[in-house]
Each structure stands twice: as C-alpha cells, then as structure tokens.
C-alpha cells in the first residue's frame, strides 16, 4: 500500500521569500496494488507536484508518504518498487544518447551482476509486455522514434525492476488519439498483473476510462474523491460538476452553462497554486472532507449541514 497522509507542499516566493504559496494542501489518499487511481486536476491544481513528491523528486513540506508503512525515501531501494513516466516522452531521453540507454542505466545501477545474455532476455521480455518490437527501438536515437514508442519504452524500463507502483503523469497528452488508447490499455493490462498506478491527468474522459478510483484536485486541495462511478456518475462538489459539464463529449453537445474564462492575472492570490479562500471551489471559510455516501468524499463547509445527495 502506498499511502499519502496530510501531504503539503509550500514554496516561499517573492523578495526574500516573504510570501508562501501552497501548491499542495493536506492531501491524503492511498493506492493499493492492482488498482488505478486517477489524480484529476487542471493546471495549477498541484497534481504534478503531488506526483513528484510520491516519486521523491520533491520533498513534502509536511505530511508523510509511506510504502507498506515505511516512510518513502528517494533512493535505490524505493525506486526498485516505485517508478514514474512523464508527460513529454522526448524530454525524458537524453538527446545525445541512444534511447535504450535508459535501460542500460538500470543495469548499471541495479543489476551489475546479471550476465549480458540474461539481461538481453529480460529486456526482450519487458519490451514484449509493452508490445514493442526490439528491432525497432533498440539502438535508435530518441528523435528516430515516435512519441508512443518512447512512452512504451519508458514503461518497459520500469518493468525491468521489481515494480509495484507507477506514477503516470499525463503520459498520453502528447500522443495522438489513435495511439493514446493503446498506452491506456497497456496500463490496464499491468494493473491486472498487480501493479498500482497513480494516473495523473487533466483529461476526465481518460480518468473515467481507466481508473477504479478518482481524486479531484482543485488548487492543491482534494475537493472530491471516491470510486470512479460515484465521482463521475454522481458528482457532488460544484467544481467537479462544472468540470464534468465542460468536458466535450461525442454523445451530447454542451448545455447552457457558458464555461468560465480564467479571470486571475498572473501573480494574483487567485493564481494557480494558491488555495482558494473562497469562491471558485464553491466554498467559504474552513472546509473539510465529508463522507457523503460510502467511500465518496466531498469537501464541504464545516458549518453547513450535510446537503442531501442526489
């Protein structure tokens, strides 16, 4: 079990670090083996910061991240089980080296004792798991491969380890629609094999397609969380409702709600990252996560009485 408890990340900004900016505010949830949890949010929601903290690339300001009860510490031991794949496949490869260097790096760091033949066998196996043809990707430079191939190669790389959890941060947003679904299906296959996936995305339709549970982030805070069919089928928080109504669908045109232009100028308190004091998430004053129905959490005013569920 990968567990986040009260994870918060604040940055000091402005001259002499006079102001603080809360990118992630008191986020708690957990990720079990064999399940996909979607972390859904728009830009500035803190979803990428949260993903980086799970990967140990950023340290939380407070709160804890534990793997089977042991505090997560970036290092070889942790990365044996927890790995990440990022948004821009081209940026994940060092452009002056061949793409398969990402695999060799793992051998140097983790498996120096494994014989070359056996290692080649393992590579072939993991490439097969992501449905890549070794002849097409090995020995090539990153710019000679497609975005989809590069993304799969990164997943294959993670599979060479004793992988248990994968943080997938917007991994399909640079891919075309016709290849995007294949990468999603690949994650679903890995899930069946017991992998826990944290699927970070801004695209609700992808989150709806692949995940068992969804966590909706808004300005660093969880506003709604629960089983996917409840969050998407019976959204309770005004922000989630608005988000869902704005998603373009093929089955229906938009309703009357005009959507919202962003009105905050850069650097305003309303800038992405700062927690909303009021307004946009439909709440005022102190709020708390309330269990509206079994397993379905929603952020509500502390003072307001529970509104009835639909």
């Amino acid at each position, binding site marked *: 079990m990968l567990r986040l408890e009260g994870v918060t990340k604040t940055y000091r900004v402005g001259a002499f670090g006079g102001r603080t900016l809360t990118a992630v505010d008191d986020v708690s949830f957990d990720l079990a083996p064999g399940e996909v949890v979607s972390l859904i949010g728009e830009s500035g929601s803190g979803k990428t910061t949260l993903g980086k903290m799970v990967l140990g690339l950023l340290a939380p300001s407070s709160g804890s991240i534990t793997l089977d009860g042991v505090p997560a510490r970036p290092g070889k031991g942790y990365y044996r089980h927890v790995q990440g794949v990022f948004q821009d496949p081209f940026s994940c490869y060092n*452009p002056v*080296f061949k793409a398969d260097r990402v695999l060799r790096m793992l051998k140097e760091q983790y498996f120096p004792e494994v014989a070359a033949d056996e290692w080649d066998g393992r590579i072939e196996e993991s490439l097969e798991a992501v449905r890549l043809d070794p002849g097409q990707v090995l020995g090539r430079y990153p710019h000679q491969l497609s975005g989809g191939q590069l993304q799969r190669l990164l997943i294959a790389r993670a599979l060479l380890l004793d992988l248990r959890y994968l943080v997938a941060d917007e991994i399909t947003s640079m891919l075309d629609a016709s290849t995007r679904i294949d990468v999603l299906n690949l994650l679903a296959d890995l899930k069946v094999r017991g992998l826990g996936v944290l699927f970070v995305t801004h695209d609700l339709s992808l989150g709806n397609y692949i995940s068992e549970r969804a966590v909706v982030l808004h300005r660093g805070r969880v506003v709604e969380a629960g089983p996917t069919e409840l969050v998407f089928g019976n959204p309770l928080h005004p922000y989630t409702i608005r988000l869902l109504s704005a998603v373009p669908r093929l089955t229906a045109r938009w309703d009357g709600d005009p959507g919202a232009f962003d009105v905050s100028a850069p650097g305003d308190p309303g800038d992405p990252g700062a927690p909303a004091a009021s307004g946009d998430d439909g709440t005022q004053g102190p709020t708390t996560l309330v269990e509206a129905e079994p397993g379905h959490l929603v952020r509500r005013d502390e003072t307001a009485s529970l509104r009835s569920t639909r």
Partner: protein
Amino acid sequence: MTAVPTGRREVLYFALRNGKLLAGLAVLVPLLVLAAVAPLIAGDDPNAYVAAPASPPSAGNWFGTTMFGQDVFAQFAHGLRVTFLVGVLGGGLAGLVGMVIGFVAGYRGGLVDEVLNMLTNIVLVLPALAVLLIVNAYLGVRSVGVQALFIGLTSWPWAARAIRAQTFSLRSRDFVDLARLSGVRTWRIITREIAPNMSSYLFMTFILLFGGSILIAASLDFIGLGPSQGVSLGLMLNNAARWNALHLGLWWWFVPPGAGITAIVGALYVMNVGLDEVFNPKLREL
C-alpha cells in the same frame, strides 16, 4: 548508407568523416608537432645571436632574423611550446574551476548557488593586472607555470556563469529526473547526463579560455611580468612592436607569431563547429 558502428567507435566514425574537424586538425597538428620537436630542429637556445641582423627569410634562416641577429624560426618554434603550455595550463585550470563551480551552482541551486554566484562575481570584478603586480612584487616568481596558474585563477568566472546557466536549464529536463529515478547519484548525473549535452559547449569554452590565456600571457609579457627566461609568441610580437619592426619593414619578425596565434585559435574554433556536428546526432543527418 553503409553500416554505422555503435558505441564509442560511432563518435570516431563520424569524427573522421567531418570536414571541419579534419581541417582544424590539419592546421593544429603540424604546429603541435613543430612545438614538440623544436629543440631538435631549431637548437636549444632561441635567443642566440646566430646570423646577420635584420636579414629577410633565406635558406639558412627560414623566417629571417631579428634586429639582433636571432633566428625567427627558432624563436617561433620555441615560442609555440611556451604558448601551448600557457594555453593548456591556464585555459585548463580556468575551465576546471569554471566547470566545477558552474555545475554545482546550476544543479544544486538555492543557497549553494547564491554563495558560489557571489564568489564568481567577486573574482569577475577583481582588477587582474593590479593583483598580479602585487603578487609579483611580493613573490617575485616568474615561471611559465606561475603565469598559467595566475591566468587560470582569474579567468574562470565568465565560464562558470555560462556553464551555470546551461546546467540550470538542463536540470529541469525530464531525463535528469529519470536518471534520479534510476538511482544515479548527483555527481554522476552531472558528468554523465548533463555534461555530454553540452560537450561541444564545454569544448568551446575551453577554446576561448585557451585563446584568452595566450592573449593575456602576451600582454603580461609586454609589461615585463612574463617569464624572465625563454621566449613566447606573445613576447616575440611585443619585441617586434618595441623595436619598430613594422616601420622598418621587418615583416618576417611579427607575421609568424601573429599568424601562429591566429591559426591556433582559428583552427580550434573550426574544430568546435565540427565537433558540434559529431556530438549532436540530430545534426549528423542533415
């Protein structure tokens, strides 16, 4: 296209097929060889008075003689040795200091960056010549090594700033995160992931520092703070200037050292452009 070898040999494969690199080497290697064998073909003492003063190039004195009857070719060959030595030592030291400070400041950021940045700026504004005058007055050392050491310790700041900026932008690339996720340690990330991305840039830095060292050495020689013994290309130029070689029409006195410095720095620059193509796989295909 024929089969291209892989790994380290691949760089060599493209290097040997790069016109710019080969042209630069074609200029540089003969000069290096000449410097290496100078004592064998030009005698041990370049300052000996060997022939009639101010005679133009001839079979006996290939580059002619100075106003005092010293052989210009012998001075040129020996001067190349000193010039290469000052360039390599001074440029190398400056490059090393600049790289260490630039990489650490750019990669670590935060407080480390601010302290190193302050140090860089202090050295940058030091009046180098004034410091040298004082150092020289107190220590009185005038060997080529000390000259190179001094040049190296004062000329690194701009290199450090340039490398810091490059490192800073590369650090945020995802492949650095991926290397961290592979358990690679910081220093290895800097040397194995970030530095190769700027290898041609680093080489360029070294070339500029190398050329800069040669030029600083020549200026120091002129104000009498150079090595008290021997000869360098800078010393030759300045001697020629001091004795009005230009007005007297002794062109063979100042053309060889001037052309020598220009050829060395120019050849290194052309090689740098060629190396960029060798190191960057995307440029190879064009």
